[in-house]
């Protein structure tokens, strides 16, 4: 059981020999994630924290069952790494790498959809089912098992709000950091649909940001009745419309024309009956009320 992954999901780490890849492999192993293999082209035969390294996923699959992948390779090589995971139909593929050009992500996501594979990210903290499995880079101790699902476009803000949840006895069924890039794999609406089906999830928190239309599309689903579970939202960047056309760290915060302004998102959520927290702590209040 679980959304996209569960405690038995077997994971390959692409870019395992790099600094980030190696460090987080250790943390994921400590969290209990079944990391069965690593891949770094040219480093086949090595070991990282006891995990055997291969040159290619195909070579790793000769020795191991592999379900999912997490990618740490630098942006320049991310296309090839992700394409390799897609071709081998790993699912989900969590892309941690930041700085991947949008045209590259576009091609990756298009191919992944053709093959029915889920990409989480890029430029995301990954996915965690507290107490079971972590395919990502979030600080594990911040999360507690429970029945509130969190979908977030932000990294640290996810930890901030998840910590508030944990501190207030609101454990999490799953936390999905879908990433801050404007073009990405799993989107808020798609994640909502998965969570609606998840028996372990009772309530949902959406952590949105300025830019894009995911929040508006999500509100539409809720308004239509496709999502029936209670939803609470927080939108970061409410006061960031000061200068349009400037990247706010995440390219996701780019405001193209009128779309994606925070007022538009807040209005859409309100019309769908979703309370939007002004301060992070208000998320807790709204959840308790719902």
């Amino acid at each position, binding site marked *: 059981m679980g959304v996209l992954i569960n405690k038995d999901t077997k994971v390959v780490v692409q870019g395992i020999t790099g600094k980030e890849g190696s460090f987080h492999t250790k943390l994921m192993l400590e969290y209990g994630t079944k990391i069965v293999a690593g891949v770094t082209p040219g480093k086949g035969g090595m070991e990282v924290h006891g995990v055997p390294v291969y040159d290619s996923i195909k070579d790793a699959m000769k020795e191991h069952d592999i379900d999912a992948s997490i990618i740490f390779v630098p*942006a320049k090589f991310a296309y090839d790494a992700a394409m390799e995971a897609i071709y081998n139909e790993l699912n989900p593929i969590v892309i941690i790498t930041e700085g991947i050009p949008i045209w590259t992500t576009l091609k990756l996501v298009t191919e992944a959809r053709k093959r029915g594979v889920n990409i989480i990210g890029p430029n995301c903290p990954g996915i965690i089912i507290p107490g079971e499995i972590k395919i990502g*880079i979030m600080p594990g101790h911040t999360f507690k098992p429970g029945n509130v699902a969190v979908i977030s476009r932000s990294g*640290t803000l996810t930890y901030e709000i998840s910590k508030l949840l944990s501190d207030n006895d609101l454990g999490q069924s799953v936390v999905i950091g879908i990433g801050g890039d404007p073009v990405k794999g799993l989107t808020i609406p798609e994640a909502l649909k998965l969570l609606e089906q998840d028996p372990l999830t009772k309530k949902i928190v959406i952590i949105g940001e300025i830019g894009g239309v995911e929040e508006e599309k999500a509100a539409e689903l809720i308004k239509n009745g496709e999502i029936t579970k209670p939803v609470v939202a927080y939108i970061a960047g409410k006061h960031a419309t000061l200068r349009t056309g400037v990247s706010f760290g995440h390219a996701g915060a780019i405001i193209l024309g009128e779309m994606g302004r925070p007022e538009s998102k807040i209005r859409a959520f309100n019309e769908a009956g979703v309370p939007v927290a002004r301060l992070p702590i208000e998320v807790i209040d709204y959840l308790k009320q719902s």
Partner: protein
Amino acid sequence: MFLYEHEGKEIFQKYGIPIPPNGVAYSVEEALNIAKKIGYPVVIKPQILGGRRGKAGAIRFAENDDELINNAQELLSMDIRGEKVKRVLVEKKVNIAHEYYISFLMDFYERKPIVMFSTEGGIEIEEVARTKPEAISKRYIPLEYGMTSFIAMEMLNDVGIKGQEARKFIPIFINLWKAFSEGDLLLAEINPLVKTVEGEVIAVDARVMVDDNAEFRQKWIREFKERRGGKESLEYKAKEKGISLVVLEGDIGVIGNGAGLTMATVDLVKEFGGEPADFLDIGGGAGPERVFEAIKSIIQLPNIKVIIMNIFGGITRCDLVAKGILEALSKLDLKIPLVVRLTGTNEKEGRAILEKAGIKAYTDMIEAVKKAVELSKGGE
């Protein structure tokens, strides 16, 4: 990153899209030289990143040296919606027969490139969409095959442009698509695209946005950045250090780790009545150097009164952040208060380091932000 009109036109020219003869001037003298070279009448346009220059009365014409000098002088001392005009584009005036609109942009949600063409150029496309939607033709471009001339022809036919007349526009579609798709652009807009009295089709404006992340394969992005000066350069230098900085107009310096958390901090500052001076994200996994560089950047901002640093350690380790803070305090002449909120990975170690140096760190971000706002208003 948005490009200046003249930068966008450089790209257009590289891809074979006709533009009027022009030149960029940083002074009245330069403007005069360009005008003499290309010949009157000319248009003088301030080069700014915001739009709506026309509405601001900032597009000028000159038939002779006197008019040019007057207008260039005026424009070069202008400030348009907070953006100081440092350079103008002096461009040969074309004989407009009709104004059209064309753009390629990325539909992030549908994950597809889109092309729009309209027979109503020179005004904002949103207005055309509202008042005369039938004058706009819009299509998604299939990624595998890109823009083809038959799609262009279909779109032209749909807005009533046919036969030989239609053929004139096709190279613009094809070449603008090439610029868009090969150049890692996210927006490539020509408004107006002008048909001249002589029958040529010319790009008279250029609004182009490029994906900064593509710098590793689009070498020109760096060149453009290096050519630019002024306000951007602080942000540019920060980026070189792995720091994402956007300068705003207030007096409270905001530093955070992660874009979402930093944005939330900016929001909270406003929420509690303060004015953020910037948005600065030190990024994931920052070490002491990046923290030091962040503080160093912020204290260079003109009106800065206080700094709020909001850190939630994940990949980022609180002890390393604390070390960076100490380094800044010892090496920089910090004349303003620094409010620190520190929690997450290695929190204990981080607090210990700061306490030794007599710095109290908050755990709760609301409290920390409130304190910073208070300090910015002269409180203690």
